[in-house]
């Protein structure tokens, strides 16, 4: 995995997010403040603009630059959280010696753990953690159980979708939707939806490669 890989995935994510933008926008309007889609789109655009800047950098330096862009370019809850995810991944042990899918899963799991600490949210609180934590767990377990890569990725795609859908009937206890009490029920969490789409895009792209 190189800086080129990151930019390619960002471009693929951009296509998927743009295609689902109206839905994501609506979700944050319903139980948030309506900015989530713009935050995410801005972040992706800024990352893609890094292409030439990071093209000859090591993975750690490239990820670190991506992390700073995400952190400084997105804003809001998702900016802090996605920023934390990438900042942690950039600090992953030995990533400059090459990132295979196992390494990728390892640093992703570390990133999700950091996000969990930053946001103090766990599964069941109607946030992106309902996607990130189960996916991270599923990926780790797949590696532990020595499943093959494609199997692991397919499972992750399913788990992400389940996690995203699970947010619908939850009461929110973290994030902006928590202010709504019962009124948040019946709506999918926007951050869960955008995270799920990103995970799906990357997993499918790697699956088919």
């Amino acid at each position, binding site marked *: 995995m190189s800086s080129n890989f990151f930019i390619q995935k960002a471009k693929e994510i951009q296509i998927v997010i743009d295609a689902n933008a109206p839905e994501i926008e609506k979700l944050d309007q319903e139980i948030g403040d309506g900015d989530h889609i713009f935050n995410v789109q801005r972040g992706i655009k800024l990352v893609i603009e890094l292409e030439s800047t990071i093209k000859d950098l090591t993975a750690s330096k490239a990820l670190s630059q991506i992390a700073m862009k995400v952190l400084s370019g997105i804003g809001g*809850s998702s900016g802090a959280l996605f920023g934390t995810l990438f900042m942690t991944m950039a600090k992953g042990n030995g990533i400059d010696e090459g990132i295979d899918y196992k390494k990728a899963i390892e640093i992703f799991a570390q990133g999700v753990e950091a996000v969990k600490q930053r946001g103090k949210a766990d599964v069941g609180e109607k946030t992106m953690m309902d996607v990130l934590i189960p996916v991270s767990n599923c990926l780790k377990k797949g590696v532990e159980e020595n499943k093959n890569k494609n199997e692991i990725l397919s499972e992750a795609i399913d788990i992400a979708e389940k996690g995203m859908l699970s947010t619908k009937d939850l009461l929110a206890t973290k994030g902006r939707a928590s*202010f709504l*009490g019962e009124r948040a029920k019946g709506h999918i969490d926007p951050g869960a939806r955008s995270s799920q789409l990103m995970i799906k895009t990357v997993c499918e792209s790697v699956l088919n490669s």
Partner: protein
Amino acid sequence: MKKFMNTADNFLKESLQGFGAAHKDIVNCYYDPNFITRASPTKDGKVALISGGGSGHEPMHGGLVGHGMLDAACPGYVFSSPTPDQMLAAAEKVDSGAGVIFIVKNYSGDVMNFEMAAEMMSGPNASVLTNDDVAVEDSSFTTGRRGVAATVVVEKIVGSLAEAGGSLEECKKLGDKVNKNSGSMGVALTSCSVPAAGKPNFEIGDDEMEFGVGIHGEPGRRRDKIKSAQEVTSELLEAINEDLKPEKNEEILLFVNGMGGTPLTELYLIFDNAKNVLDKKNIKISRSLVGNYCTSLEMQGVSITLTKLDEELVKHWDSSVLTAAMRWGM
């Protein structure tokens, strides 16, 4: 959506430029990362106050930068909390060595971004978290309550103490006290549109109002049929009083805040109606503030904030202030 703007992308930048140009005697605006400081540097040994939050709530916070209030403000994109690099750059500019107080409204985005900035900072700092919106149930299991208009009051009073030489610890303590002494609640008649979205954040019927609305147009306690100003005011005050429990004969600040699209006439009418209620309860309006201070873009709406006052708070409320949006005594 009807707005005076060119492109959604340039909305914030052009507005900041205009703000900076119109008030160049009071503020300096910096870009990439965006932040606003006082035109004259923080004096040595004075604790620096930095606030910030998503844009769309003007004059909060940029309009509150100046003598007796903030040293710097970090505007995020519309309704999106600002980012750590903004706060770090602002702190770098205004920290005179006595440390930095961050004044943060309680939204997970603001909290996390300010937290990250605080962690990355080398100098001493502390944060005051405002969470005065009684529309939301408080609970330690959740994010808790939203920070809304009382943030303006916190900034005024802590700003005064900092100007008078208060230490980082004293400023933090006073900020927490003002927040604890304050309760707010709002109601909206119309929605508001984020420029990038180009359409209203929520739909609301011609005969409806959102009771307990948040300052980003987040849904509140309930959707009601429009009621008379007196009924609305009484219900807002009831909710606030239930939480704040002011004593008989207690002195309070009555702050009637418009959400951006509410004309002054209506805010004063609400002030009158609120006075009716408070007079009956023998709660004494000792200080008052009326105007559009903590807004939600072009939303037609109003919030009421009560702050229980004591001698210390009154002293710091009354002290001189010179910002674009609040100015007295100089």
